[in-house]
């Protein structure tokens, strides 16, 4: 156990010689620049006197055993001890109240960083894993759908509903199976919406997640509420 810190005598100055001898475990430390290296060699069992705020104990509780962390989308997940073993980096104690002004990042930078990236998950019916895209990277539906086409390796077929609004409805087709996918998204309210109805910027604001739905299922989910068109019926039968 390290001795109590010396009292400070302002008029005489700190007696450094005295303190230098007491740095670290007795018998281990020589003077000179290597003193700190020697301290850690044997200090794993040394414990400093507890701090006022008892953080060392709290920190131990937080780093061992279960820890909770918060996903980007706000859901709270529990991580078990066995998962922790695989990680070379200890997961930080999570779900803390955010401290004002911490971490010390300039407000300007903080604002830019939190706004600049709008990553949303993209799922495709039948695909084994999801992808993520950054909606801020694109300026239009066309660009987004081209990127999705790249990602899921299926060409885009432009598809026009004669009675539709200004925007062509896009579908994606998987060339090997001939299955078509309709791009849809989940908005802030959790509703499933067809991609393309609202202006691009509005879409970026409200889109939380993208889903590429298999054509046959899309008919049931999206087209039913609308007034059926004779041409629509023939088109969707393919």
């Amino acid at each position: 156990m390290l001795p109590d810190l010396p009292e400070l005598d302002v008029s005489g100055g700190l007696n450094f010689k005295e303190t230098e001898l007491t740095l670290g475990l007795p018998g281990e430390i020589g003077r000179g620049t290597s003193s700190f290296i020697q301290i850690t060699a044997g200090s794993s069992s040394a414990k400093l006197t507890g701090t006022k705020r008892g953080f060392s104990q709290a920190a131990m509780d937080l780093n061992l055993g279960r820890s909770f962390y918060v996903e980007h989308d706000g859901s709270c997940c529990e991580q078990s001890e066995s998962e922790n073993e695989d990680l070379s980096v200890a997961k930080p104690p999570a779900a803390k109240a955010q401290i004002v002004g911490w971490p010390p990042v300039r407000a300007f930078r903080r604002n830019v960083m939190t706004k600049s990236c709008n990553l949303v998950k993209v799922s495709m019916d039948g695909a084994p894993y999801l992808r993520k895209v950054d909606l801020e990277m694109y300026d239009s539906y066309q660009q987004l759908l081209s990127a999705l086409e790249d990602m899921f390796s299926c060409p885009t077929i432009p598809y026009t509903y004669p009675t539709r609004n200004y925007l062509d409805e896009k579908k994606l087709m998987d060339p090997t199976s001939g299955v078509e996918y309709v791009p849809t998204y989940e908005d802030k309210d959790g509703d499933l919406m067809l991609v393309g109805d609202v202006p691009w910027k509005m879409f970026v604001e409200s889109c939380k997640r993208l889903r590429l739905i298999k054509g046959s299922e899309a008919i049931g989910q999206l087209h039913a509420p609308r007034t059926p068109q004779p041409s629509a019926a023939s088109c969707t039968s393919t």
Partner: protein
Amino acid sequence: MNYFPDEVLEHVFDFVASHRDRNAVSLVCRLWHRVERLSRQRVFVGNCYALSPQILIARFPGLKSLTLKGKPHFADFNLVPHDWGGYVQPWIEALSNSRIGLEELRLKRMVVSDESLELLSRSFANFKSLVLVSCEGFTTVGLAAIAANCRFLRELDLQENEIDDHSGHWLSCFPDSCTSLISLNFACLKGEINLAALERLVARSPNLRSLRLNRAVPLETLQNILMRAPQLVDLGTGSYVHDPDSETYNKLKHTILKCKSIRNLSGFLEVAPRCLPAIYPICLNLTSLNLSYAAGIHGSELVKLIRHCAKLQRLWILDCIGDKGLEVVASTCKELQELRVFPSDPFGVGHAAVTENGLVAISVGCPKLHSLLYFCQQMTNAALIAVAKNCPNFIRFRLCILDPTKPDPVTMQPLDNGFGAIVQSCKRLRRLSLSGLLTDWVFLYIGMYAEQLEMLSVAFAGDSDKGMLYVLNGCKKLRKLEIRDSPFGNKALLTDVGKYETMRSLWMSSCEVTLGGCKTLAKEMPRLNVEIINEHDQMEIGSDEQRVEKMYLYRTLVGPRKDAPEFVWTL
């Protein structure tokens, strides 16, 4: 030295450039003081409330370049309320009413209004250079005035300011006769820009060396600009997004080959990673690279880019580079002197953060490193000790562990020994920021070893008043001390009150200092302004036993300031 005519002294003083040296010169004797002050052209004022514009003007009639700093450093992190102060208006008014021929104004953390900018633009015929860092309060209307009225403008440099964007019209306000621009940086503007006006401006500025664009400037325009300005030394890209198979991108690739002078590269606020290969040819000669806003470049693309940058001296990056990426930096950038690793997700749980391993790798590979800002997930004493051994040349060492009271995760010990090794080994250390679990011991070490330390930032550290006292007593060159959320109280504050007149300022927030303690200090030291910021109970004075939320004290020649808002109370 009376036998030298003044002109000779003046000529000798011309070679004395740094502010500190000139300040020292002026203290030698009255004659030197007079010659020095009459010949001084550049003045640095670290705290705008330490003196008045009138004092400045009276002492330095030959003033040409003025640097002013306003709000305390912790204002960067939203710890200082919005209307605290730091207005430049009285300075510009006073200067414009005088005979000072101001040519350069550099402001940091000050409140600048459009009115101020307008007055500035009209008052000084030879005005050449305006640099605003972390300022606020103005809009593009003020910028338009600068553009329109400063006929010989050479430099307009806007760094990380909060600017209200009313329109991109301000760029068009540079008259056709303005051909003197050397440096233009508007990267922090959020809105649209008149692209045609920008291209024309670049075309008529043959001396343009530094150009930093904002997000609204697309790749096509960048291509056109680089065609006209292949002599650029410093480039900040705007939106770096395009189809890599396009004609425009192809053109860019060829144009960039002509830009052999680019040494500084930044920007990439928006980036399509597949377009990065176009810049590989520039990377070979880069000495400075700032990718700290380039959230769109990660993983293998980032590493590939860095592998091209063997001559890098300064690198600003996001922590998504990871420890492995830092190992690549360490093996590639042997000339590295300054490294800043920013958190890509300041509020998140840091999936892609860096740890002590990345820092140790850097210290092994880059022995010339002297400036560090490192946001990390965790740190160990062993790592800090290794870094201290490998890099004894640190001048600035700022470590920020995202969990502010996290101990060494391997030993569960506080990080006192690690930081102790840093201050012991780095004898030229001037600036230090601490984080992690820390006791009074770290302050003992700092007081003992950090002889050149000028600025110390402390958060959530220490056990008792002793900690703060070790620092105040030991660090003879201390100029700025800022402390938050640490258990230092009146005893620490009041033991050596004379110390504060040797320092620029002291900030203490969420500590144990009470109103009574501050009052005592203010009474004993009339040449200090002791400001209390109480946002919650503005008019309630409360008892002396009450803890003070935020205290900011600084030495001053001019007493309590008259522009303090309601929630700031100068004792």
